[in-house]
């Protein structure tokens, strides 16, 4: 697995210019606008998407066939992709949160507690997005995977809106308002709860990916 991680870091290094550009944009947004949270989320999501690009690089020129003749298993290949996603995602999350904190201290638009809360909310969302995207990427490959993914996110967004609207119409509960009025303490609980659920979804997603990979004909 270590060999695969080394390979993927080498592949990700190829995109270092693009990554630097994203970083500059994020810092630019922090400096020139009052919004700290958007650049934060932006940076985290982009970097966690970088891990997906390694799947496309692996597939380039039928490279997968050779890759699986190396002393690795298909299961360890999938696990490595999830590890890489978490490593890159969490690494950037820490970096971006610190960046956000520095900005908050200088600008004073948000309290540190609020910023950390927002950052903590981004974390489970990032994990869930990876959990959805990786199986698609592995099943359909780089090109088709992107299209399939857009569809999946569309459906997910519609479900989300339907849940919010439905809850309001049927049970007369305003979910958005509930979240907004949640006291900080139980908000913290909600975040922990969300992260646990997100990790559970990631685990299920990994199981699905492993079975996708095991069935793949190369």
């Amino acid at each position, binding site marked *: 697995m270590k*060999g695969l991680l080394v390979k993927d870091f*080498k592949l990700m290094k190829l995109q270092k210019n693009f990554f630097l550009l994203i970083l500059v944009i994020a810092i630019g947004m922090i400096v020139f606008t009052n919004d700290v949270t958007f650049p934060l989320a932006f940076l985290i999501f982009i970097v966690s998407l970088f891990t997906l690009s390694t799947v496309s*690089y692996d597939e380039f020129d039928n*490279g997968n*066939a050779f890759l699986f*003749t190396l002393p690795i298993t298909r299961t360890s290949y999938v696990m490595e992709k999830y590890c890489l996603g978490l490593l890159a995602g969490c690494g950037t999350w820490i970096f971006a949160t610190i960046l956000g904190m520095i900005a908050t201290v200088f600008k004073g638009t948000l309290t540190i507690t609020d910023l950390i809360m927002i950052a903590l909310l981004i974390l489970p969302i990032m994990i869930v997005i990876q959990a959805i995207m990786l199986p698609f990427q592995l099943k359909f490959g780089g090109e088709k995977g992107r299209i399939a993914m857009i569809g999946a996110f569309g459906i997910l967004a519609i479900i989300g809106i339907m849940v919010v609207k439905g809850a309001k119409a049927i049970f007369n509960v305003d979910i958005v308002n509930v979240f907004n009025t949640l006291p900080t303490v139980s908000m913290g609980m909600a975040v922990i709860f969300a992260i646990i659920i997100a990790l559970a979804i990631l685990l299920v997603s990994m199981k699905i990916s492993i079975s996708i990979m095991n069935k793949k004909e190369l």
Partner: protein
Amino acid sequence: MLKIEHLKKHYNNFFLDCSLEIMQGCVTGLIGQNGAGKSTTFKSILGLISIDGGNITIFGKDIKDFTTKDKEELGIVLSDSGFSGYLRIKDIIPVLQNMYSKFDKSFFIEQVQRFQLPLDKKIKDFSTGMKAKLKVLIAISHNAKLLILDEPTAGLDVIARDELLEMLREFLEKDEERSILISSHISSDLESLCDDLYMIHDGKIILHEDTDVLLSDYALLKVDEKQYGELDKQFILRSKKEVYGYSCLTNQKQYYMENYPKIAIQKGTIDEVITMMVRGNEQ
């Protein structure tokens, strides 16, 4: 080393049923036309595709039970696949180091220099010859016991092919127990390297013979209609109608040389044997 018993794989209009065996210390060649089933056989051995039946054992172990440790004993070259073209040799070295416990870094670097492969260039920008050499080099630099090489010489010029075969010979010399399964459609490569040859056609093995026997005992008899009528056909494997009469493939050259001194007998080359086995009519 490697044993395949009735490996079956079915595609729309293709049915593979292949059995072959590679002995310890031997170089075994697999020849056949494009689409004859060579790559399908290789992919099945390597577990890249699912198989519909039969058994494949490597080092006496079913490939279904193969662990990553067992895989370290294999060196693989695939004709249409390799490390991602976006990587450089510089990037591959640490990857191999972390994958193969017996990776010989100094040997690898020495050979890279010997063949003047660029360390700092993306593989996708390599020439065909460089790519082929790198693939073989990766396969031979971690002390593998068995090499499985699918068309390692495809698309190479004479010099590059020679260098590549030289690499394989050096690999074999270091340890007598090492074996190679190699496929190619360039018969001269196989002639000089292989101990025995399997010929595959339409998914089936149609011939298995020691290379020496193939070269010494196989021959083409060129006969006219009358001679053909009188010919004892018990050692004729295939015959084919020609303008002048018939050409017949035999695996008993000596018999016909002694009994039919007037017949034109041409020494068999691997290419001719292939052509006759595929195109000729069975006796």
